[in-house]
């Protein structure tokens, strides 16, 4: 199938940040995830949890709560501000201060008219949601201790607020407290510690469910203010609660890393007297679960161990398929590594800095080679200011580095993006037009820089020794203005393809600087694409594991692509649970397409027949055992290599060697803080 020299890179110490909050929007089927470093990500639930949008965070910006109001996303954090996000351009829209000290929680009502935030100073502040902004309305009765958690009654007339040692129920109209529910402290030594009500849920039948630091999930009646039932879930804290849409299921996340499900079940079959009963326990996390969300068919949980776990509820799933399997998302669905193909340099993107490395050299032959020269770190570049890096790129020649951040300059202006270009450590200023970039890409001869910007447009800048000059802008003829998350330039410098979050792929002719055509919109998001160097066909990978090849010149799908669509892909290929992150082409063998996802590396030989469901998919071992003559009849287009695990990036260098950047999950786990110590049986 072809032999490659492989650089197995393990010195990219990428650390995913812990998950702090989750918010699910049922109408658009998106789940928003806030991380400890202040970044916010949006996942598409019905598109195999593809990470559609990433809004990078800032230093000292701890998000504590997320809330959807309609299709708008708000967050609040310990810096005391409420932030609205511009999801179209994937950036912060504005931040206003609530003037109540650090904000611990934010909750929007179901009607979409108001936002409530719980502050350190003991106030619950109501904000009215206007067309373009939010407006402070009033405070509810001020309490003595900080407000940790909030939940609106579905009617919007009452709010339950979890505090230290108690829960308050407020009447929203009057702003006065209706009931005070006292939560018991723990027994023994924890008697002296305050009981923190980490989470409350207000149900439409008037039941309030609370999860507290004693490890109890308690059910209260809001009419009488009495405790109905309490369940001891854990010895540690219950940190998060989430109830399903029809209020028949509740999940609680604990600091032991377990998610406990409660169900509203009739105790005698066929009768109506229902009770909340503890049913299942899911243990997929090693550390504290800081946020849970019950979406229609699954339970999503995230915590300190930085992985987003989607645990399907099989009783709610109509058809069991790969889309409804247990899913653990460890790494972003974007590329954090870029390679200078011609000079053997690698650029690693960390939230706050960039690292440039030169690959090592080796000699000898065999399955493992002797390292002649160790890889060396050439550059450690810290970002100016508080903003984190949104995207970065290194030019193929290795002379240029470009990165962009999202910075908060002034309110209500376009959020400026600073660009820096490095030419042998010479910083060159960019034209102001290139002020915003969602994705960056160099042309293959390193002469041009493409920068995806607002309104789905792409700016072109030419690069020369003297500096950087703005050349022009490519704009799509029509379509949405969603931000572009993928760019691909052709080898001959003639074509540029861009993909945005609305699943649109536009192709531009770089010579005429005009839009050339648009690839038919598919229901799933594009996760990776590349333009074939010889045939100029655009090869696209989708989040639902489908693949397409589109001939740019003929403006139609290629025959091979149509064959793939007609015959369908193999079951094993469709059941993979991570999206393909890169498409490469082997210049020595034009029929080879190289793909990778987190768990495997795959070479597709377009000249070989496609496998059907009856053929053996992983057939390398079988082929090896067969004599030479029979191999041909048994081989099919997919050659899968599972030697590497936890792959962040695979790139084919111009010297026909492969660079595989791995980030083993064990290394990630070893850098996490110690989890809560639990007694294990027989230890």
């Amino acid at each position, binding site marked *: 199938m072809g032999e490659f020299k492989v650089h197995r890179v393990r010195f990219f110490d990428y650390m995913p940040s812990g998950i702090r909050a989750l918010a699910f929007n049922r109408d658009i089927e998106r789940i928003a995830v806030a991380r400890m470093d202040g970044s916010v990500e949006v996942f598409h639930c019905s598109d195999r949890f593809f990470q559609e949008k990433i809004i990078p965070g800032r230093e000292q910006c701890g998000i504590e709560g997320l809330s959807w109001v309609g299709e708008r996303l708000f967050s609040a954090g310990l810096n005391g501000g409420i932030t609205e996000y511009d999801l179209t351009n994937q950036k912060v829209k504005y931040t206003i201060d609530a003037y109540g000290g650090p904000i611990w929680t934010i909750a929007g009502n179901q009607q979409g008219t108001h936002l409530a935030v719980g502050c350190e100073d003991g106030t619950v502040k109501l904000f009215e949601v206007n067309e373009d902004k939010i407006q402070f309305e009033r405070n509810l009765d001020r309490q003595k201790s900080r407000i940790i958690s909030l939940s609106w009654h579905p009617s919007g007339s009452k709010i339950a607020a979890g505090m230290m040692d108690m829960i308050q129920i407020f009447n929203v109209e009057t702003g006065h407290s209706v009931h005070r529910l006292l939560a018991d402290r723990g027994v023994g030594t924890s008697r002296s510690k305050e009981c923190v009500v980490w989470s409350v849920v207000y149900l439409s039948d008037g039941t309030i469910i609370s999860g507290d630091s004693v490890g109890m999930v308690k059910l209260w009646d809001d009419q009488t203010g009495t405790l109905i039932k309490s*369940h*001891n*879930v854990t010895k540690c804290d219950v940190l998060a609660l989430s109830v399903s849409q029809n209020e028949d299921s509740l999940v609680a996340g604990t600091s032991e890393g377990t998610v406990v499900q409660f*169900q509203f*079940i*009739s*105790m*005698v*079959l*066929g009768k109506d007297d229902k009770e909340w*009963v*503890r*049913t*299942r*326990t899911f243990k997929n996390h090693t550390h504290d679960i800081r946020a849970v969300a019950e979406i229609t068919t699954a339970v999503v949980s995230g915590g300190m161990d930085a992985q987003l776990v989607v645990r399907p509820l*099989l*009783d709610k799933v109509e058809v069991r398929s790969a889309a409804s399997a247990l899913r653990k998302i460890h790494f972003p669905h974007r590329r954090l590594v870029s390679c200078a193909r011609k000079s053997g340099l690698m650029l690693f993107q960390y939230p706050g800095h960039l690292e440039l490395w030169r690959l090592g050299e080796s000699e000898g032959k065999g399955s493992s080679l002797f390292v002649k020269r160790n890889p060396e770190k050439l550059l450690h570049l810290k970002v100016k200011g508080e903003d984190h890096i949104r995207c970065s790129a290194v030019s193929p020649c290795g002379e240029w580095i470009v990165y962009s951040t999202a910075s908060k300059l002034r309110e209500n202006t376009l959020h400026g993006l600073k660009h820096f270009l490095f030419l042998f450590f010479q910083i060159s200023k960019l034209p102001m037009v290139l002020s915003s970039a969602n994705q960056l890409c160099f042309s293959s001869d390193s002469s041009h820089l493409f920068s995806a910007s607002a309104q789905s447009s792409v700016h072109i800048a030419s690069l020369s020794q003297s500096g950087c000059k703005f050349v022009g802008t490519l704009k799509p003829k029509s379509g949405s203005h969603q931000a572009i998350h993928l760019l691909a330039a052709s080898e001959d410098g003639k074509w540029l393809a861009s993909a945005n979050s609305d699943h649109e792929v536009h192709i531009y002719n770089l010579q005429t600087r005009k839009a050339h055509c648009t690839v038919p919109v598919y229901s799933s998001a594009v996760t990776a694409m590349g333009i074939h160097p010889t045939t100029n066909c655009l090869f696209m990978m989708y989040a639902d594991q489908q693949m397409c090849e589109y001939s740019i010149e003929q403006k139609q799908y290629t025959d091979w692509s149509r064959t793939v669509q007609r015959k369908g892909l193999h079951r094993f290929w469709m059941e993979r649970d991570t999206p393909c992150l890169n498409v490469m082409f082997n210049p020595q063998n034009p029929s080879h397409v190289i793909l990778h996802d987190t768990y495997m590396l795959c070479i597709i030989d377009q000249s070989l027949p496609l496998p059907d469901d009856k053929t053996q998919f992983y057939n390398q071992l079988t082929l090896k055992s067969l004599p030479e003559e029979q191999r041909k009849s048994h081989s099919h287009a997919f050659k899968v290599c599972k030697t590497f695990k936890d792959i962040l990036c695979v790139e084919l260098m111009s010297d026909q060697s492969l660079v595989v950047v791995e980030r083993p999950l064990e290394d990630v786990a070893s850098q996490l803080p110690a989890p809560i110590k639990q007694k294990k*049986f*027989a230890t």
Partner: protein
Amino acid sequence: MVETSDIRVVRCGGSKVNLTPPIISSDSRFVLCTSGDLVKVYSTRTEEWLHSLQGHTNQVTGITLNPANHLQVYSCSVDGTVKLWDFIDGILIKVQLVEVHETVEIFLSSGLCVSACPECFQLVSVHLPKSAEQEVEAKEMSAVSSHISKNPSCTAFGRGGEYIAFARHLQLNVYFFRKQKTYSFSLKATDKKGAKNAFTCIACHPTDDCIATGHEDGKIRLWRNFIHKKEYTYSTQHWHHNAVNTLCFTPEGTHLLSGGIESVLVQWQYGAGNRKEFLPRLGGSILHISASSDGQLFCTSHSDNKITVIESSFKVCGVIQGLVKDAVLTDLMIDPRSKALVLNGKPGHLQFYSLLRDKHLYNLDIVQQEYIYEAGLDQFEVVKAAFDIKGSWLATVEERGKKSSDLEFFLKLWAFDERTQSFVLNTTITAAHTDRIISMCFSSSEETTMLVTAAEDSQFKAWCQGADADTQQDQNFWSCDFVGSYHKLNPTNCSFSADSSLLAVSFQEVITIWSPDTWEMLTTLCQPPGVIRDLCFGRLSCSKYLLGTTTKNLLCCWNLLTCELEWSTSVDVSKLQPDPFSENVAAFSYQSKHTDLFVFKPSEPRPLFTNKNVCSEKVHRAVFVPREEPLNSCDESTQWLNRSQLYFLTQNMDLLTFSTATEEDRMLSSSKQLVIDDSVAVTPFYLLLGKHRQQQQKLNTQSHPVSDKPQQTQGSVTIKELLHTPAHVLPAASVLCSMFVNSFLISNTGVQQDPLSWLT
């Protein structure tokens, strides 16, 4: 031999009491459990065996209280009948013949009986016909499921008998009787974490629709919402580290009890997640749990044939111990003093069990070391034991090490202490032989006691009690007297003649006869081919004969006076057991998958009694148990059972015996008289009233049947008045006292002033 039907093989005495869950009567006074062919009734307070329900002709496999009448109990048996009993009086009320071949287990609810038949383990619902006749045939049957688990704990009735839940391997099925519909749910064969998900037991909540299931990996799942194909749900709890053997909800449904091999009774609070209580160290692993209907008492039955009665406050209040015979290593023996059956019981102990009263007497700790309950540990076990003829000496051998390389064993001699009425360790011999002891016997003479041990080191040794010259002590310890061997052959057996004048030791194919007085080898007897398997001398009038069996299917009888073979016959004898009280010898022969019994006298080669097909397994252990009072049967075939009873142990560890027709008649007649009120608790008032009543009854029957009637009512009226009148209106105690005493007097006239007239 013609009258073989007179003699039946029965399971009577020493049977398993842990086969099925015990049941507690609704007033918590009685515990009922199956025991062989009987259902036994025990008192919960005194742990005494009160009486038994006798009538089944084969193993009783299930009992349950009649839901319509809590004083009645249903029982089912392998003989294909379901019987209804009044368990307080022990009266058989009704017999139902069920057409399935063998009823294995019974579950009852609202007049519906579900039984399983053993070939394919079908679950069949049998409609019990309402009929006044005593014997009815149940014909109305419908199959519920054709494949259920062999384990009866995997089937349980749900709330109010509306549905039945049964599990097999990895599938749980719930059958609703009204809808006649089955819902099934299956678990994954293997979990990723190596969990074993197979179901081991089931219990249903009494009021809620919740099914608790136990699993092989120790998990307990609580299933709910099981009328939905997909929206069913379960919660999992895990404490047991090994398979959950049994589950039981308390009658109120507030708690769930579970037990397993850990022998810890775990009480889970229903609906409160992990809150649980433990009652540890209950003995053998827990096999069944049952709760009384008022929830005040729990019963657990254990693998060491024991029933523990536990109060709801988690305090053990009674232990009913049966005969432990899981792994019998020693021979079956009879303690000459107590006439109790002796064999190894609890690990490292000898148990003394009275077969007549079917009661465990006591355990004698032989090993005197802590036993650790863990699989794979090599620990000391009692493997041999022997009593001398008076019962004043006991010799035991304990060993550990399955392989001969790390074999370790002790020979211990115990003297009976009259003062403490128990055996006291006299001598421990650490290296009696260099290899495993094969056989051991005491001399049977009255004057000197001598122990002979034969071991695999091709030696036999004689041990005598003698004053040790070195230690000037009063106690006499045992020491070796003689070491004998024969051509370096390994001995296989040793036996003393009835008068102890001769010792026979068999070395492979050769029997050597020794004189114990001079230790001179008198003669050798040999009948090749075949290694000698069993050896015994004849008794009483036949004491001149020596019997031997060989591995080559030969039973030989030598005349010791002529030293010639008297007779021999070709039969594969697996066990030869002489009756110590008569000339009879019993021989069990195993061929073509069943065991036959021959009883014969050594003097004549013709058997007195043959019973073909006693059981289907091999018999290696048997014992003659002396009767308390001899039977006086004249029938030739039953005569051999007059003075003693033959018990034998099959490979399945079933203790079987023979019962004759006359014996059964006597038992039946006695059981009818057994309707005494001995179940009534003995309170002071009972003593007062009961004795009084008995006296009167005696008088009634003896002399005046009519005239005493008013007297009795008068007496009870007095007491009733005394008890029911409020204390503040009662007259002084001195007044009452005379009246109270007066009421006990028997008036001759019957014309007496009404003692209560002043009250009105």
